[in-house]
């Protein structure tokens, strides 16, 4: 037990607000440590001074309070809380807006995915990145008719498909030529190549 610890608890010790063991430990420390016992003595004196402060008598009596009270109206009783524990505050309705917006977005997303235009390319018969995906939560299209689900989490923020002229970050139509893959047929780069390509480089 160091002095810093003891000094931080001297007031509580003085007020008998520590556990019995701690009171005992601090008492034994104070018997040995002059610095801590001086600190304790000054705090004890401060408390002693405060306790000797006289009680101040007011100029006016309680009658003045009672006169004012007679004209006051008691506050309205506390509004009863509904059994389900949520109180609706009309002025604070905007706080619930984000919740509603999220629900609406999920519902709308399920609808919009099914109504979007199919990709214009028909180059690949295999399921690709850019096939329309139906919302598994709200399958409005029968599963056998809908296209294959993606094996990963769908992108909620994907842009709706636009006509061809609209530039898009995600190519909804394959480029005729890809600089990274060389002259590859469009039908082949929809699937990720399983074998890495090793390119012979001259020494």
């Amino acid at each position: 037990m160091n002095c810093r610890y003891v000094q931080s608890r001297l007031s509580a010790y003085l007020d008998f607000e520590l556990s019995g063991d701690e009171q005992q430990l601090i008492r034994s420390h104070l018997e040995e440590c002059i610095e801590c016992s001086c600190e304790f003595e000054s705090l004890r004196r401060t408390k002693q001074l405060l306790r000797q402060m006289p009680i101040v008598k007011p100029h006016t009596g309680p009658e003045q309070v009672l006169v004012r009270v007679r004209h006051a109206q008691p506050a309205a009783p506390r509004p009863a809380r509904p059994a389900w524990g949520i109180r609706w505050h009309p002025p604070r309705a905007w706080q619930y807006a984000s919740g509603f917006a999220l629900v609406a977005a999920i519902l709308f997303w399920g609808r919009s995915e099914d109504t979007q235009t199919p990709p214009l390319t028909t180059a690949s018969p295999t399921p690709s990145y850019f096939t329309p995906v139906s919302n598994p939560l709200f399958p409005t299209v029968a599963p056998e008719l809908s296209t294959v689900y993606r094996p990963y989490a769908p992108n909620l923020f994907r842009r709706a498909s636009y006509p061809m002229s609209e530039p898009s970050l995600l190519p909804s139509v394959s480029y005729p030529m890809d600089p990274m893959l060389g002259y590859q047929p469009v039908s082949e780069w929809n699937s990720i190549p399983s074998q890495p390509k090793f390119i012979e480089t001259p020494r």
Partner: protein
Amino acid sequence: MTHTAVAQSMDDRLQREFDELVYRHYQQAYNLAYRLTGNAADAEDLVQEAFLRAYRFFERYDRSMPFMNWFSRILTNLYIDEYRRRGRLRTVSIDEVYSGEDGEEGTTKDLPDTAPNPLELALSNEYIHAIHEGLQYLSPEFRIAVVLADLEGYSYEEIAEITKTSIGTVRSRIHRGRKQLRDQIKKRHPNLFERGDLK
């Protein structure tokens, strides 16, 4: 008895109970307010406001709690609100020499009747003023904790309940408040901290 008559008699009963509590605790409430605000005018305002609020919410008063504990919470909350609203409460130096309205020069301010309890040891007025002034140097949170503990004699648990804080916070506030107060008093009256019992 009609419904309104029942309500009326209930109101009367509450009213009588409240009046009795005001009579019983007015002195103590004023003393607490005076030590917090530091002057008589603010103390009276604070006590009146606090009793008014207590009356308005008297139906919510939980009878399992002593009235003064509940009332102290109202009073200290009001005091903190007022303190923050004003930035800093108007504090009047009781030692400063001022010229009165009637032209009397060189007199000090009249304090309310601070009749000491005869059972307590008499502190000289000079010391009382020093301690009272020292209290005004503390931040309101520390002052509330120290006044409730050392002047009103509440336990740490009660103070935590009144100020709606943890016991650890109360312990720290009382400790730091006392240390700051001690340093303030020591500056002006180091003899109060010399060894030996008080006169």
